[in-house]
């Protein structure tokens, strides 16, 4: 407890419930690891000795555990230069991500194909790892099944073989069931993965292919190279950089001039760290092969057999640096998850085809979106900083290239005659992002901007042009080209592409016109998404649903009024809501008790009598969200504990199903009634885990996106 004074200040709220949720999440990891990280979370940073004291493990166990935890980057560490003493500190974000593993794997699978999924799976399994080792492991694990696929009894039980061999055998044990259940449902959105997947089973995996996929993932930012600085918490990193810089100023930092000098120095140092981290990524991005359109073309051309293309690709760049250490970039995974969520959101509000177009837009934007949230400790590279301040934009062509091939863009658009559309309005260009609506405090903040934005009367003339060609007689082609065929990018005539482009533009225009403003038409043929306001809306949607479920339509009406108007006196509120006063009071009291509303008393005179006091109701968004998050964490913990109870109830069956000869082929090995009970448990587990993942959806909307 000696280190209590430098208890870390987390960027995100680290409430008790959060810590509990993390702890339960960590049950995925081993017992030792869970205890170590849980203790670190509870106690703040500690050294090995403290940890041993608090966990009652012996120091040897603690050190083993710490090594693994560092391997998975679940803790940060910091070594004091003078005393060579190392302190460890929990990394709550990374720990929390364990609960999202399933979603991440799924999203990677759909976006980058099955091999990428397997690679990410390996990375999660191994933690940070050298490229050569990763490729070796991957080929070993996902390679062709040997004669005995799924853990026959006779291997692994002779204890005198060397441990390395043991490791390999364990992997063989897994590989069968990892592959077989995914082959049938991978082609969910775009059938690219299928050919890949079946090819995997048939022949040994080519190292080239693995390197290529890895290069693609690195270029996309899903996998990042690891540097030493990543193992320091961002706060520590900044502090140590500042300390270094301080040495340059022996006279101390006094006065404005020296202060700014110092600041720029610190900034440049931190930027250098960012640049160092992104070197390999940039190298691969410069390689033209990793432009997304090329990848797609390659995939479509010959179903994943990319051998012919692998000659001078990113794969060979990676081959030259087999010792580079990589890990999964959780920030980027979060971006992918956010894209998925937003697409679902758009599907709810607009429609399926339009949502697919939106997904295409997000996918093309995603290249330049590095993380969902920034704080003062975020280390950004130069490009990232650029896009952070100016925003990202993509052209229609880029979106079109990212559209998944199964989408029929001609559907889902209503038919309106040309005269009914005011092209000036429909194609209006909005150069400035909308204000974040809702919170009354921000509403008055910068009116200058708003006026600037609304004064803009420009509109996109390319829309007119496209319309012209349409009138000139390509109308007949819609019917034939309704569905895009697989590889029509280069082969088909220009006109059909233009036609589809026009349809896609219509979808984008629909998206700009929705109340939610999914998309902003920010320049001639350029589009962007304002993530901030959009996520804000998503939050309101979730909150509204929650309030409506708990307090009915009237409760929802009241909170919306309060959100719109700010603080309201309890006399004006009933009039505004068109409700009876007693009803309003009952509802308000109910909601206040649940923590969704707050009340403020303002006495009119000194003696604070109730009838001389004004009561203002208000809706405090930040506080409500915090409370909702807290509840979500608690419910997650309860689900996971429930799972524990269910496990306990079925422990006899589970221990049977965990046996090596049974694992993976439960159906044949277990007796009928036992198997049925096992299935029952699987069903329960699935339900509980899905509940956890739904709660996690909520958490990510409210906190992480």
């Amino acid at each position, binding site marked *: 407890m000696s280190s209590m004074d430098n208890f870390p200040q987390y960027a995100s709220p680290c409430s008790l419930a959060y810590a509990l949720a993390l702890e339960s999440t960590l049950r995925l*990891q*081993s*017992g*030792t*690891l869970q*205890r170590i990280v*849980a203790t670190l979370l509870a106690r703040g940073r500690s050294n*090995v000795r403290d940890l*041993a004291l608090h*966990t009652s493990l*012996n120091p*040897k*166990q603690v*050190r*083993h*555990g*710490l090594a*693994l935890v560092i391997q998975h980057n679940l803790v940060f560490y910091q070594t004091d230069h*003078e005393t*060579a003493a*190392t302190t460890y500190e929990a990394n709550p974000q990374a720990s929390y991500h364990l609960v999202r*593993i*399933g979603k991440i*794997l*799924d999203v990677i*699978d759909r976006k980058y194909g099955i091999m990428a999924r397997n690679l990410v799976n390996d990375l999660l*399994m191994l933690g940070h*790892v050298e490229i050569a080792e990763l490729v070796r492991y991957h080929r070993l694990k996902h390679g062709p099944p040997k004669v005995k696929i799924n853990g026959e009894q006779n291997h692994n*039980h002779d204890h*005198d073989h*060397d*441990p*390395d061999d043991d*490791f390999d055998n*364990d992997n063989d044990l*897994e590989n069968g069931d990892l592959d077989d*259940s995914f082959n049938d*449902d991978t082609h*969910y959105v775009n059938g690219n993965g299928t050919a890949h997947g079946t090819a995997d089973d048939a022949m040994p995996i080519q190292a080239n292919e693995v390197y290529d996929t890895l290069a693609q993932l690195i270029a996309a930012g899903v996998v990042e190279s690891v540097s*030493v*600085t990543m*193992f320091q918490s961002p706060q520590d990193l900044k502090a140590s950089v500042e300390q*270094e810089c301080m*040495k340059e100023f022996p006279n101390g930092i006094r006065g404005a001039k020296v202060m700014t000098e110092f600041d720029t120095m610190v900034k440049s140092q931190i930027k250098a*760290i960012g640049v160092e981290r992104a070197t390999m990524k940039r190298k691969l991005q410069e390689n033209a092969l990793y432009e997304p359109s090329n990848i797609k073309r390659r995939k479509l051309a010959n179903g994943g057999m990319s051998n012919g293309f692998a000659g001078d690709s990113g794969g060979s760049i990676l081959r030259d640096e087999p010792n580079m*250490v990589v890990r999964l970039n959780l920030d980027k995974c979060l971006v992918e998850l956010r894209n998925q969520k937003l697409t679902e959101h758009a599907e709810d509000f607009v429609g399926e085809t339009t949502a697919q177009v939106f997904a295409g837009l997000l996918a093309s934007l995603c290249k330049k979106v590095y993380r969902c949230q920034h704080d003062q400790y975020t280390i950004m590279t130069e490009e990232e900083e650029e896009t952070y301040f100016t925003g990202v934009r993509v052209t229609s062509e880029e979106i079109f290239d990212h559209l998944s091939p199964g989408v029929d863009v001609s559907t889902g658009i209503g038919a309106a005659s040309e005269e009914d559309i005011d092209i000036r309005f429909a194609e209006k260009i909005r150069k400035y992002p909308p204000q974040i609506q809702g919170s009354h405090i921000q509403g008055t903040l910068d009116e200058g901007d708003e006026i600037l934005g609304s004064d803009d009367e420009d509109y996109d003339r390319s829309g007119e042009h496209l319309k012209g060609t349409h009138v000139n007689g390509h109308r007949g082609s819609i019917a034939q080209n309704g569905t895009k065929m697989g590889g029509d990018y280069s082969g088909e005539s220009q006109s059909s592409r233009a036609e589809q482009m026009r349809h896609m533009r219509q979808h984008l225009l629909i998206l700009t016109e929705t109340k939610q403003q999914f998309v902003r038409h920010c320049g001639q043929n350029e589009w962007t998404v304002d993530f901030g306001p959009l996520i804000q809306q998503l939050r309101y949607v979730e909150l509204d649903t929650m309030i409506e479920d708990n307090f009915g339509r009237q409760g929802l009406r009241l909170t919306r009024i309060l959100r719109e108007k700010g603080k309201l006196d309890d006399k004006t509120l009933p009039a505004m809501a068109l409700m009876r006063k007693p009803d309003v*009071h009952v509802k308000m*009291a109910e909601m206040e008790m649940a923590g969704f509303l707050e009340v403020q008393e303002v006495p009119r005179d000194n003696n604070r009598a*109730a009838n001389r006091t004004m009561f203002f*109701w208000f809706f405090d968004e930040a506080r409500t969200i915090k409370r909702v998050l807290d509840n979500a964490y608690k419910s997650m913990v309860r689900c996971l504990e429930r799972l524990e109870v269910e496990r*306990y109830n079925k422990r006899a069956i589970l221990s049977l199903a*965990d046996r*090596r*000869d*049974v694992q993976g082929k439960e159906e044949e090995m277990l007796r009928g009634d036992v198997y049925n009970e096992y299935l029952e448990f699987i069903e329960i*587990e*699935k339900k509980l885990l*899905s*509940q956890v*993942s739904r709660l996690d959806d909520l958490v990510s909307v409210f906190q992480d996106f």
Partner: protein
Amino acid sequence: MSGRGGRGGRGGGRGGSRGKPAPPGMPGGDDPSLIVNDQPQETYPKFYKPPVAPHLTPLEERAISCFVKFRRAYHNNPLYTHRHINGEFLSAKDPVLPRHGQSQVNERYGVKNRATIDPFFSVPMYSHRFVDETRTLPKLRNTRPWVKDLFPEELWATLDGRDTGGPKGGFQTRGTASRGTKRRLHDDDEDDPYGDGDGDEDIFGWGRSQKRRENETEEERKARIEGAGKDADNEDGDAGDPDDEDEEEMEAEDDDYDSAEDEDGGDYNAEAYFDNGDDDDFGDDDGVGESAMDF
């Protein structure tokens, strides 16, 4: 309900269930038409219909199957250490136990050693061949190459499997604090943000000693490790051949008990019974184990 009966003494004067004007101080209390119900709430709603969760979407289904697959694979790899919950707790009705403090949390985890073994099931049986042996320590050594530069230096010995237990493990601190040593991690990347102008000789001094350690021959290493093992007064300091992996683990599990016994000289020592009673309460660092630290 029974709640009313119980409160009869005080609540007798109270009127009907509803129909009281609002108490002073409540928002809107100045309104005479406002009637509040001041009866205590039902402790449990009469009709409690919890909302039923909708079925899984295909998306969720796949995400969860990914998760479960991953978890199973992870649990099968040699780095996973099993959670062995204390036997007492397993036999308790409620597997989710109170965790109000660290000591309670720690109590959940038992040690599996010779003392706690169940004599009826520990007899070797045929079916034991199919049960994974529970690991108490991850097998760090030889399972995979570790990128040592990314680990703090005090864990390097652990990664090599040379952890000798004790407070320091295999990590020897060299020099004193005044030396101002620099971590080796930084000196091999070329644009090191820290290594700009200071302490070059420190870096080299550090690096040399490290080099020396990596280049030493096998005998030297053995000798040093044995020395370290004696220093730490611990029986499982063998850098060991892979054969006695299991023994090593077993020792690691109950080493605190063993060492405690050694120090006490067995269960009962009549000569030392009175005069030696109070100086070995806490043992040294090796003795700090599950039992000693529960306060």
